[in-house]
């Protein structure tokens, strides 16, 4: 048995409160007796009767805490409960009216935060429609980060937005910049004349970062969701976003970034774009199209700035040519662009988001020949965080590829910016160094190429990230297309 008696002078609680506190503490596991009371003669007598030793001079103005427990652990729990009960009894009592409860719905939050104009919805996909609809009903435009939203639900949301003069960004919209504020995953780009309408999150990030290398800023980047230009959705948000940017005085040039759209929708949108006062540059992604770096060059030159190749740090000893290229991506569009470039030189590139159905990987996703994985694909992120935040899936895969004798070149993207991992290189650099050591121990060379999607003001310090990755043996490129070409050149042994 362990007793403790503590006397606190000058603290008063009424007897009803203290009886409740005593009861709460006595209920703690391992406590055999607890008396918390003011030191009146009656109370002191009761405590003595219970066998507690009281310090001399204890009087009616003292709060006496007397607790007996079976062991020290029990006593510790009792004292913690005692503090909690005493704190609770002094907070919010008497005349305090307390705080308003937190808002439980978007509608309620909108009424509280008078003047809100945008909702960011990232609840699990099946729940996102309800929150997004609530936001529209409350008069807010909405960015739906969530995926797994049906196309019918998407159309319903976008029709409601049109009716109310609002914009739906998404679903599955990972990136937006509105009024200089990055939403979702967004790089810290400077304000400027180029407005983006993007059906691709990492595509928009890459383009903004390429503009950033030439100090060309972005007015707004409005995501529309990857399906917006499909025939089912019909470019509903693209049209609304184009109209918003056309009315925006700071936007001098609009770049529309999308995978090749449905032909009818493309014709509609192109015709619509011609009616706008602001010039619109159409940037379609895929085989036979300009890569994002080239699109950035066109945009930079269109606003009257000289283009230069983006910065890179590629002084690493090249391995002997041959072997397989393995790409491990967090950004879907970056993976896609790399595959287009690689396939043009190397032919078949297997993937979980393959360019052609016959190049799809099996269900176990084991690499076979030249292989690129989009680790941020919906099917690989269920129940876990996106690889831009949680790199474990990629770190594991790096080790797997390093142990594969056929793998000669690793190609990775590292996406910086708001909401991304605070220091990805700190985890990747040791993993890459270990991968190279594994290969070296096996008598092989393993080259590593990194596409660093970053703006100079990103919170992770792009330069520091590049230094760490380079020190681990990686060649580092700001341009994803340049990184892909370099990786291909290492496999073919040709000049890039």
């Amino acid at each position, binding site marked *: 048995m362990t007793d403790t008696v503590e006397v606190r002078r000058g603290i008063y609680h009424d007897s009803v409160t203290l009886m409740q506190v005593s009861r709460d503490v006595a209920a703690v596991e391992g406590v055999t007796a607890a008396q918390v009371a003011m030191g009146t003669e009656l109370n002191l007598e009761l405590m003595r009767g219970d066998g507690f030793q009281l310090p001399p001079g204890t009087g009616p103005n003292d709060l006496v805490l007397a607790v007996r427990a079976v062991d020290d652990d029990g006593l510790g729990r009792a004292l913690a409960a005692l503090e909690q009960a005493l704190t609770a009894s002094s907070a919010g009592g008497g005349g305090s009216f307390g705080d308003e409860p937190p808002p439980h719905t978007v509608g*309620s939050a909108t009424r*509280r935060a008078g003047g809100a104009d945008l909702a960011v919805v990232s609840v699990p996909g099946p729940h996102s429609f309800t929150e997004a609809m609530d936001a529209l009903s409350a008069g807010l435009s909405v960015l739906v980060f969530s995926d797994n939203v049906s196309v019918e639900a998407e159309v319903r949301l976008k029709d409601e937005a049109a009716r109310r003069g609002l914009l739906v960004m998404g679903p599955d919209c990972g990136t937006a910049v*509105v009024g200089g504020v990055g939403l979702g995953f967004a790089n810290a780009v400077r304000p400027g004349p180029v407005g983006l309408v993007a059906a691709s999150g990492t595509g928009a990030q890459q383009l903004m970062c390429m503009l950033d290398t030439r100090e060309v800023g972005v007015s707004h980047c409005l995501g529309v969701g990857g399906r917006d230009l499909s025939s089912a959705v019909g470019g509903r948000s693209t049209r609304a976003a184009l109209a918003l940017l056309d009315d925006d005085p700071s936007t001098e040039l609009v770049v529309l970034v999308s995978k090749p759209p449905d032909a009818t929708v493309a014709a509609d949108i192109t015709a619509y774009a011609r009616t706008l006062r602001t010039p619109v540059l159409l940037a379609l992604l895929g085989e036979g199209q300009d890569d994002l770096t080239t699109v950035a060059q066109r945009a930079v030159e269109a606003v009257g700035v000289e283009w230069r190749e983006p910065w890179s740090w590629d002084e690493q000893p090249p391995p002997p040519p041959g072997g397989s290229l393995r790409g491990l991506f967090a950004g879907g569009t970056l993976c896609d662009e790399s595959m287009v470039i690689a396939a043009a030189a190397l032919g078949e590139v297997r993937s979980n988001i393959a360019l052609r159905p016959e190049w799809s990987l099996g269900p176990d996703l084991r690499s076979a020949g030249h292989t690129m994985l989009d680790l941020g694909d919906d099917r690989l992120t269920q129940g876990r965080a996106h690889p831009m935040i949680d790199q474990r899936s990629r770190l594991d895969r790096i080790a797997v590829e390093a142990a594969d004798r056929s793998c000669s070149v690793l190609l990775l993207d590292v996406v910086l910016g708001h909401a991304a991992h605070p220091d990805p290189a700190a985890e990747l650099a040791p993993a890459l160094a270990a991968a190279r050591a594994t290969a070296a121990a096996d008598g092989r060379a393993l080259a590593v190429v990194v596409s660093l999607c970053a703006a100079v003001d990103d919170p992770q310090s792009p330069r520091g990230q590049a230094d760490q990755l380079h020190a681990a043996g990686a060649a580092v490129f700001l341009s994803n297309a340049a990184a892909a070409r370099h990786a291909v050149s290492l496999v073919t042994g040709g000049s890039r």
Partner: protein
Amino acid sequence: MTLLDGAPRVVAVGAQMFSDALAAQAVEVTQVDWRPPLGDSGTEVHLARVLADPRHGPANAEAVDRMLTAGAELVDVRPASEALGLGRGEFLHAGPPIGWDRASGPLRGALVGAMLLEGLAGTAEESEAALAKGDGVSLDPCHHHRTVGPMAGVVSPSMWMFELRDPVHGGSAWCSLNEGLGKVLRYGAYGPEVVERLRWMSAVLGPLLQTAVRSHGTVDVKAIAAQMLQMGDEGHNRNRAGTLMFLREILPDLIGSGAPTADVAEAARFIGSNDHFFLNLGMPACKLAGDAARDVPGSSLVVAMARNGTDFGIQVSGTGDQWFTGPADTPEGLFLGAFGPEDANPDIGDSAITETGGIGGFAMAAAPAIVKFVGGEVADAIEATRLMYEITLAENPVYQVPVLGFRGTPTGIDATLVTRTGILPHINTGMAGKVAGTGQVGAGLVNPPAEIFPAAVAALAELAPPLGLEP
């Protein structure tokens, strides 16, 4: 003002990291305290379907507007046989439909007392036998007759009823006269003093009130309800100010009725000493509001909450007369004399119509005198009312809470909001003894069973236009 003018002001729901990233950019962001909805998996699909229904928003706006604008005037006092056409052996009861076999103690006790009152049986045993056999007796919910009854809510043909009219939407509603507290029929007591009191109410009080109301002209019950909230009543567990205001209104006409002075004095004493006399006027006033909001296709507004001592049921504007029921919970609260929690019957009565109409537990912050029911502190009462704004569609322009800066009470429970937030309506209530014949044992708080709200949402989803929501 468009989205692109200046930095956005953001409401965020979901991953906290996005709010953190916005806060790091010095953006004003309000984070929603989101949680998965009530009910089984599949509720989210029903919710989406209901919110996708183009009728939903306008329907809710229409329904709650009708609820808020409904008036409530006392126009007459008449026996149930005349006002409701109740025939011999026909009884009304509180809550969703139920038969004798599933009826709880207090409902059985009240029915026994009504049998005795109507002279359909000579003893309690004979009453029970006849009720069990259904011999010459029939039961029907008050709500199916535009009527509400507190606790057991039993109405029999000879009981006198307040008759209220909604001059705005044209509805009518009825409620019996309140008997007082303690051993009374509505709490399931049926002893000789209970039946004797009811006989006096039918013979003396009812006719007197009829004469007085007819001579006075309509009494604006809604106006009294609005004032009582500013005088420390919440209209469910505290009706003291309302009762006295009603008595003040009607007293000159009682005196002027020409009835024997002793009868007038007895009636005035009975009304004035019964702190809950006004409950039976506030309830039909709220019933008028709920009924005005009925039958708006697509609306998820709750238009009735009622309990029969076994089941708790709700009705929703967009699903007609369908009841969504679950087991009634047992209230928590304070007990009279030596009674304790083990003596209490599960929740019973149509009086949750007050919370449906935006008073009662929803106006808890207006009634600091009864905060002991909600945890003892004024702050608890204020928190209780504030939380209800999360599940209601409007702030009542007439019913106001002084301590919240005369903010309108949270009014118009939305079944989708309850389902989404998991916040259950907060109901103040009396507690009946579970053994028939006991009477009142206490008063306190209760919530509806959670599952009835997603059930209502599922039914609304069935009625909504199809929308493929599977990805």
